[in-house]
């Protein structure tokens, strides 16, 4: 797998060196300098949050919420315990960037969390790691040990009176736990069923205490912002889309992998970096932000730049930055069938529209794919979708509906052909 780096999270990481993840190597490439800067120059909490705001960093977990703003919501002077939580429950199909961060540069995440703890007056943090990447959990635990031994983590960090404890916590196979309140339930040792919001985690989070949750890549971007300044980070990207971002490219390209590039890079350039289309085939469509993002046809995608605003304008979303590339041989009905099965399988079952609706969507797409579709099925899909979206506690319901809507918006003719002729226009995956 390829890793291409022109960005802040992987800056200086040597992917061929098995020791590059370790503390010594991290420190040698400027690691923990941001933490030292804060503790030794007396940078204040307000100054840190101001830098975060200036950076225009938007949450890398999918929703793109401005991180500085989120951090400012935390009641800093709340008297009781507060918590900081990292979301490494990466399970959105197509996304594999956080795995690479934990494995190859875990201290960037750890340093980012320590800084977050300092900025919001939090002394305890957890990192919730997707169960299937268990080796990454072990790597994270090893990195924590190193950070503790070196005095960057734990009690009296670098000889100051600032204390921050951080622990790894693994999942065990549930996509829904990527949703932040399901994650909190799971971290409390329960089944991962999302909570009603409000109250938001900033007031009622882990164990009912104020909690801030960010994605792995979000935290791992923090050391650079503090070291180099928010303005410099912002300028790496474009206005309202600060910095660089990791894109996980999968599917029909020659070099699948993680590409850390400035936000605002044209999609056509990214495709070229990834070695272009596998086998010289033609690009048919791209899912630009993880499986929940509506699909975009090739011509629209080729005009997009890779940033939140451009992809949103094109009718999809940048989401987690997972770019699923499909060539002309892909049958859209079959592709959607597999995605719909995923949401059906992973719905936590709490809300009726999602529990029943995801299965319904899957069964209808399944029968179209298998030559038993009916002419009215496409309208049925849209109507079932409309009865799920916006009617559930969390956004998994919407995530299940968006792929259906995107496919029918851009590839309706292919579905109609399937229903009429009972087979695909093209060979398959």
């Amino acid at each position, binding site marked *: 797998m390829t890793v291409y780096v022109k960005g802040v999270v992987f800056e200086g990481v040597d992917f061929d060196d098995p020791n590059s993840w370790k503390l010594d190597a991290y420190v040698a490439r400027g690691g923990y300098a941001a933490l030292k800067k804060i503790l030794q120059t007396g940078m204040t909490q307000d100054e840190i949050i101001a830098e975060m705001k200036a950076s225009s960093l938007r949450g890398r977990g999918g929703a793109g919420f401005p991180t500085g703003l989120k951090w400012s919501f935390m009641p800093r002077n709340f008297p009781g315990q507060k918590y900081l939580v990292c979301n490494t429950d990466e*399970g959105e199909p197509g996304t594999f960037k956080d795995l690479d961060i934990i494995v190859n540069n875990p201290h960037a995440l750890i340093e980012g969390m320590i800084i977050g703890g300092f900025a919001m007056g939090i002394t305890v943090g957890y990192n919730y790691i*997707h169960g299937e990447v268990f080796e990454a959990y072990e790597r994270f635990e090893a990195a924590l040990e190193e950070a503790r031994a070196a005095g960057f983590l734990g009690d009296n960090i670098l000889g100051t009176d600032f204390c921050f404890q951080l*622990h790894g916590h693994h999942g065990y196979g549930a996509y829904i736990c990527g949703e932040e309140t399901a994650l909190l339930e799971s971290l409390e040792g329960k*089944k991962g069923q999302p909570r009603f919001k409000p109250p938001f985690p900033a007031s009622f989070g882990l164990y009912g205490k104020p909690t801030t949750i960010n994605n792995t890549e979000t935290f791992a971007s923090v050391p650079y912002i503090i070291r180099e300044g928010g303005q410099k980070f912002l300028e790496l990207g474009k206005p309202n889309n600060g910095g660089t971002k990791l894109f996980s490219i999968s599917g029909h390209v020659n070099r699948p992998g993680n590409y850390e590039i400035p936000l605002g890079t044209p999609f056509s350039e990214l495709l070229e970096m990834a070695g272009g289309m596998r086998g010289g085939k033609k690009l048919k469509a791209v899912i630009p932000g993880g499986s929940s993002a509506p699909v975009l046809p090739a011509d629209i995608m080729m005009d997009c730049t890779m940033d939140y605003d451009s992809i949103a304008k094109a009718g999809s979303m940048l989401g987690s930055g997972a770019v699923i590339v499909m060539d002309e041989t892909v049958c859209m009905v079959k592709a959607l069938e597999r995605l719909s099965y995923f949401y059906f399988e992973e719905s936590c079952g709490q809300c009726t529209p999602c529990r029943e609706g995801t299965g319904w969507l899957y069964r209808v797409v399944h029968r179209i794919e298998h030559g038993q579709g009916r002419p009215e099925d496409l309208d049925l899909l849209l109507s079932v979708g409309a009865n799920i979206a916006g009617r559930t506690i969390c956004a998994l319901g919407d995530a299940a509906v968006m792929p259906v809507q995107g496919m029918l918006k851009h590839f309706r003719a292919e579905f109609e052909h399937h229903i009429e002729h009972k087979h695909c226009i093209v060979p398959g995956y």
Partner: protein
Amino acid sequence: MLTPESLAQIDRELAKYPADQRRSATMSALRIAQVEHRWLTNELIEFVAGYIGIAPVAAYEVATFYNMFDRKPVGRHKLTVCTNLPCALSGGADAGKYLQQKLGIGYGETTADGRFTLMEGECMGACGYAPVMLLNNHSMCSHMTPDAIDKKLAELE
């Protein structure tokens, strides 16, 4: 029901959480128990609940919600292959078919000699390494082409 080593591992997990939040360690305690016994019987789940100090139903809730827990006997090696779309575009579904054919079993089944259990998985967050297969809930095997599968299976007694 668990060895001192497993109990020590559970203790290490418990230490991560506030003293009045021992329940938070349920998932890792069940995982540790499953690693030792390969699958979770009701007795084992109850034992874990007792050790943590929570109601058996609370541990059962966790054991039944999360996909990686096995509540039926599994083979010596559990193979979970990802067939979700990003992987399928790079041979994930084919890897699944090849494994079924080679082992002569379907998803959710175990070979007669008790050597392998085959499972179909959802996205593991490793799509760049497709086709991927998770071995015994622990090791991620990358680029599982038929040749690579043959080689991997030959290593597993």
